[in-house]
């Protein structure tokens, strides 16, 4: 690096060189701090001995974690969110995967309009999606309920499933399927034993995405839920008079569960690649 004749750079010079070379890394570290500060706050305040209004630090306790259903209606709301999340994810993943296969594997008339129909819900603000669905339910005299929430969640999750699974299908090596055909597998067998297993990680990722979108949705749900409570709705409604620390417990727990699922998924797929 340094030639013998070159003078030793001064310490301040070296420091500034290190700084400019690592500027982008420092910036990225600051961005990660920005991303995680609110998560850290949420986690820290799940240990707050706060009673009803969890805004000011009152002292450390494990009570909230031992008794996550301690605050009234928290667990009812979480239960609804889980049920809605599972049903919507299942439906949206099936419907979206079917569309993704049609788009990724077949030539057909109406491809452009299909792509547009998939893209539009993602380009529409949630408040419009929620308001328009509610306008239809009101015009049809349908009362918002558990099932109207499911309907709305499936609607906005389908597009995200389609683009996720479609990307996976597009990245497949077509030679793998040709090889299966060369080995006398028919179309059905090729799909069952080659294509589907290869696309599966994409489908699993799409399902995880759909579930987290559904579980965390507030705006569309708020329009189409009537009196049914969900976890985000519970948090929003209690924000005015103080959120119980149990909500932070559930938010933090969801964070760690999802993180573990994603990391395990990454490890598994890396092992498979090596094998």
């Amino acid at each position, binding site marked *: 690096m340094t030639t013998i004749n070159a003078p030793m750079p001064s310490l301040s010079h070296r420091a500034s060189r290190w700084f400019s070379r690592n500027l*982008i*890394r420092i*910036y*990225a570290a600051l961005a*990660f701090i*920005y991303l*995680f500060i*609110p*998560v850290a*706050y*949420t986690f820290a*305040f799940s240990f707050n001995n706060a009673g009803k209004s969890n*805004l000011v630090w009152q002292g450390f306790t494990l009570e909230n974690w031992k008794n996550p259903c301690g605050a009234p209606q928290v667990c009812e709301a979480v239960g609804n969110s889980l049920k809605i999340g599972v049903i919507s994810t299942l439906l949206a993943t099936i419907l*979206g995967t*079917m*569309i993704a296969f*049609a788009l*990724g*594997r*077949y*030539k057909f008339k109406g491809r452009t309009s*299909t792509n*547009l*129909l998939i*893209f539009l819900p993602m*380009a*529409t*603000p*949630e*408040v419009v*999606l929620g*308001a*328009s*669905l509610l*306008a*239809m339910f009101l*015009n049809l005299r349908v009362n918002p309920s558990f099932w109207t929430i499911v309907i709305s969640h499936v*609607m906005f999750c389908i*597009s*995200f499933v389609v*683009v*996720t699974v479609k990307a996976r299908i*597009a990245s497949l090596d077509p030679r793998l*399927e040709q090889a299966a055909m060369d080995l006398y597998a028919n179309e059905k067998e090729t799909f069952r034993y080659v294509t589907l297993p290869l696309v599966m990680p994409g489908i699993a*990722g*799409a399902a995880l*995405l759909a579930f*987290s979108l559904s579980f965390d949705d*507030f*705006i569309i749900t*708020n329009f189409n839920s009537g009196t049914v409570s969900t976890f*985000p709705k519970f*948090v929003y409604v209690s*924000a005015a008079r103080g*959120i119980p620390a149990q909500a932070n417990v559930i938010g933090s727990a969801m*964070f760690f*569960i999802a*993180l573990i699922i*994603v990391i395990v998924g*990454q490890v598994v797929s890396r092992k498979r690649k090596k094998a």
Partner: protein
Amino acid sequence: MAFLHAVSSGTSATKSVLKGKSLTPYLLLAPGLIWLVTFFIIPIFSLASTSTMVRPEGAQVGVYEQKLRFANYVDAFVANQDQYLRSFFYAALATLLALAIAYPLAYAIAFKSGKYRNILLVLVIAPFFTSFLLRTIAWTQILADSGPVVSAIKVLPFIDELFRINNTSTAVVIGLAYNFLPFMTLPLYASLERIDPRTLEAAGDLYANGLTTFRKVTLPLSMPGVVAGTLLTFIPAAGDYVNAAILGNPNTKMIGNVIESRFFAVVDYPTAAALSFTLMATILILVTLYIRKSGTDELV
């Protein structure tokens, strides 16, 4: 992450397409598309229909009749133009702030992270796994008048004793930028990651300095990611009302807050519908112009 990959790369040409005409693609499409038409397209028409309704004299609260009163749009816009313009202004500021934060972040992950790349990508989406409402409420604590940020800034000279961030437009923009940051970062990363590092080396070999290489090579090649990221941030930010409700004050209300309160607190469905419809139309026009201008038609 794949979905944002797909959003930013658009409808990439399908490599292996099954031959032969058959009903199969239509059978695969039908259930999902019927769902989207029934619960997305038809409701948009329903919204349009509601927007021109009028409440008959002496009718119950929430009862409206179709009178094709298009003046509803004018009334709704005139009464709420401040909130309307503010929504786009805040969304634009939040998008710029998110771009300024996300571009170097995505660049660092794409070019400087080595074997930690996948972990860092997981960390970008990880905050998403905590309820966004809880995170937004956490911001009210972080930016509180006696909180760490405000106390730190007040140490500086020339800062007014009354300086605050919570319940101001600054807090709303910070919250908006924060909430949609992963939507900005992931498409940027996807387009930066596809750049062959050798093209950057080639620029250096041709005596371009760091800044010139960035301006002439990196930035143009990452434009699809910039377009996708700004859209994915701007659109939800313009329609958001949660950040303004939690972090703002009555003078920072956005159009989403008006639509929500017209629907639920005032039970004035036509005005809410007219405002929603105007919001959607404006966004679609802006998006179309933006995509045309930036020359990345592949998004749709």
